[in-house]
């Protein structure tokens, strides 16, 4: 029956016409590809070693999606010019499931088999699994979590995010714009990401003259019922509810619970990934004034001349078209912005070799960070100046949309209040020399 249909539909003439057309298209395509190959005649592979599945995937997968857009744009423009050659960028991803053992396997594959020249990681629990191999092989690795840095981590850099230090900008802005909001409660998942962030918020609240009315509430990462967590938090009737650096899987139910338990104050959080979904679960009115740190890249404020991220609005539009605006997360642009810094350094070094690129990155002392020129920093907190610090935006949800209110300087805050930060980091055992 199926054969009959085929016989009936494909005549000899049609077959020839189709074959000729296909051949022509392939020939044109092939010539086009050969042109592209000629424009960027070499390829450099970059490793992407982050959680793409599991509860932490919100800080991995959107970053990979952003990198693919970045690579397409760069490759279409002829690639990255390194010395006399143009290099096409190819990302090789490995899902480490936020497990150190799998991260080690992934790093082995990327370094030994895929011959990558640079590895981007989320970091955290997974970095210690990678560290011995990366150091042995001299591989340049980036992390989004500077708390991975120690004096021994010579080839590890945090060139985009100084998590959690930038959270101080949100608190500073809150204190200036809502001077009556004084009573604060804070909760965080009890893990490597939550604790240093709590230390940062505590320092920022103290610097802003805000009062913590309850001890920080650390909940287990396996928590699924957030009703009792929120009940406990709201029992002391706070003005400000701080959600620290909770994963999206916690921020959403926490906001839902705050909504259901009729919280009327201000919520401040490091991230608000997929916030349109939170608005769907609560209300636009409830989420009005929600303060966090990660802008949507369609924000006009990103066209400020100090911003170094190329065409942020176009990048966002492309991302939203492919994956949906609601899928935009804190990391959608971050790994791509690290690639900007890597490309600049590779071009300056005239080499893609990890040691040369790292040397070039640190040579001038200045880095073209996404939100403006920034410098290497971190000696006092992490024992090594391998984190890039500069300005960071304060973002507020207004009428259901994230809006950049202001860029604030992290180094300025640090210059005034670093003793507080060190005090709280020490109290929670987060200084580099306290980490086991």
């Amino acid at each position, binding site marked *: 029956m199926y054969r009959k249909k085929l016989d009936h539909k494909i005549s000899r003439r049609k077959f020839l016409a189709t074959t000729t057309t296909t051949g022509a298209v392939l020939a044109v395509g092939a010539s086009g590809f050969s042109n592209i190959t000629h424009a960027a005649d070499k390829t450099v592979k970059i490793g992407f070693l982050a959680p793409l*599945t599991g509860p932490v995937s919100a800080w991995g997968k959107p970053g990979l999606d952003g990198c693919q857009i970045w690579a397409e744009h760069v490759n279409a423009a002829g690639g990255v010019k390194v010395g006399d050659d143009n290099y096409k960028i190819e990302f090789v991803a490995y*899902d480490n499931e*936020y497990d*150190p053992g799998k991260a080690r*396997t992934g790093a082995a594959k990327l370094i030994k088999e895929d011959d990558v020249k640079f590895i981007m990681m989320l970091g955290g629990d997974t970095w210690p699994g990678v560290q011995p191999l990366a150091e042995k092989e001299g591989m340049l690795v980036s992390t989004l979590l500077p708390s991975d840095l120690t004096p021994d981590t010579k080839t590890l850099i945090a060139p985009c995010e100084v998590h959690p230090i930038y959270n101080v900008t949100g608190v500073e802005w809150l204190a200036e714009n809502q001077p009556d909001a004084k009573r604060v409660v804070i909760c965080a998942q*009890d893990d490597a990401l939550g604790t240093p962030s709590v230390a940062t918020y505590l320092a920022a609240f103290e610097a802003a003259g805000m009062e913590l009315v309850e001890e920080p509430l650390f909940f287990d990462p*396996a928590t699924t019922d957030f009703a009792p967590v929120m009940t406990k938090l709201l029992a002391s009737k706070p003005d400000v509810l701080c959600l620290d650096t909770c994963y999206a899987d916690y921020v959403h139910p926490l906001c839902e619970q705050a909504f259901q338990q009729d919280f009327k104050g201000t919520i401040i959080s490091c991230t608000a990934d997929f916030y349109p979904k939170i608005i769907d679960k609560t209300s636009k009115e409830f989420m009005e004034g929600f303060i966090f740190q990660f802008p949507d890249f369609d924000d006009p404020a990103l066209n400020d001349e100090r911003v170094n991220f190329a065409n942020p609005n176009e990048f966002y539009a492309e991302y939203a078209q492919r994956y949906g605006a609601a899928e935009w997360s804190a990391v959608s642009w971050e790994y791509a912005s690290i690639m900007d810094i890597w490309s600049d350094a590779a071009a300056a070094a005239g080499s893609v070799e990890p040691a040369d690129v790292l040397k070039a990155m640190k040579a001038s002392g200045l880095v073209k960070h996404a939100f403006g020129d920034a410098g290497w920093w971190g000696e006092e907190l992490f024992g090594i100046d391998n984190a890039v610090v500069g300005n960071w935006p304060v973002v507020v949800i207004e009428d259901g949309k994230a809006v950049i209110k202001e860029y604030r300087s992290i180094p300025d805050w640090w210059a005034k209040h670093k003793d507080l930060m060190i005090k709280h980091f020490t109290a929670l*055992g987060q200084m580099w020399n306290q980490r*086991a």
Partner: protein
Amino acid sequence: MPNRKTNLSSWALGTALVAGLIVLPHLLSFSQREIAVLLIINVLLVASYRLMTLTGEWSLGHVVIMGVGAYASALFSKSLGVPVPLSMLLGAGTAAGLAAILSFPLFRMKGFYFLIGSFAAGEVIRLIWKYFTNPFGGAKGLKLIPSFPDINLGFADISFFEPENYYYLCLVVVGLSLFILYRIEASRIGLTFHAIHWQDKLAEAVSVDTFRYRTLAFVLASFFAGLSGTLYAHYIGTVNPTRFDVEEMVYVLIWAIVGGTATFCGPILGVVVLTIINEIILRALGLDTVRPMIYGGILIASVLFLPDGLESLGPKLKRLFAGKRPSGQLEETT
């Protein structure tokens, strides 16, 4: 005569398996050797879990017990300077010792209550690791754990940082452990475990102290689970409480269920097949992000179509062929 034939084929199969395991690293890529190391550690974990289930009790704390071994060995070697091989034995011993203590409250329960009790006990241990930053490192855990010392043979340096060498170390340790576990199961003690599983009241009626035997199974299983934890800790170089949470325990249950627990080989078959599918085949196909979905699908399919696990495939196929042979013989004779 048939027994001799069976013995011969068993020996041939065993020899081929050992030979295959010895040459295996040379057939694998570098990253696949890393996977092989973790797989062989998990084989010991799941085989030790089966010993625990022989008495009929399914625990949700087995991965935490693995963690006890890992943490203890890491602390013995890192904080107290105990040589790593010795600290590994001490780590496994600590896991067994803790199991002996836990058996007093836990074996007051049976069945579902034991399951929940073991989960609660495991969570208490995990929370202790998190709460006491000193010595357990808190939520971030312990890192820079000393690795297994290199061996200098004069003509060659054997570095256990290399996955190939660590694979052989694990192969020896796990092979020996599996042999012991197998011998335990085949011994009178193992038969008593089975008896307690299927007829505990009857076993008690003939003077079997079921509490002591359950405790023995728990302690032995915990020793080997702890040993697998020590192998993990000194290879990866870091341990944290999340690595030993209930999600990891679910994987052990899946391996055991998909493989089957009726025979010694069942859970081992489960972990090997599922790891190859999950870590090698699906990754090679570029299906990284949908692996959990496919993994779930495999579990559902195996429960529906192979309720007795992968281990039941062999006998089924054997029966299938055995059923066909007579008719073939009949055709020949006619």
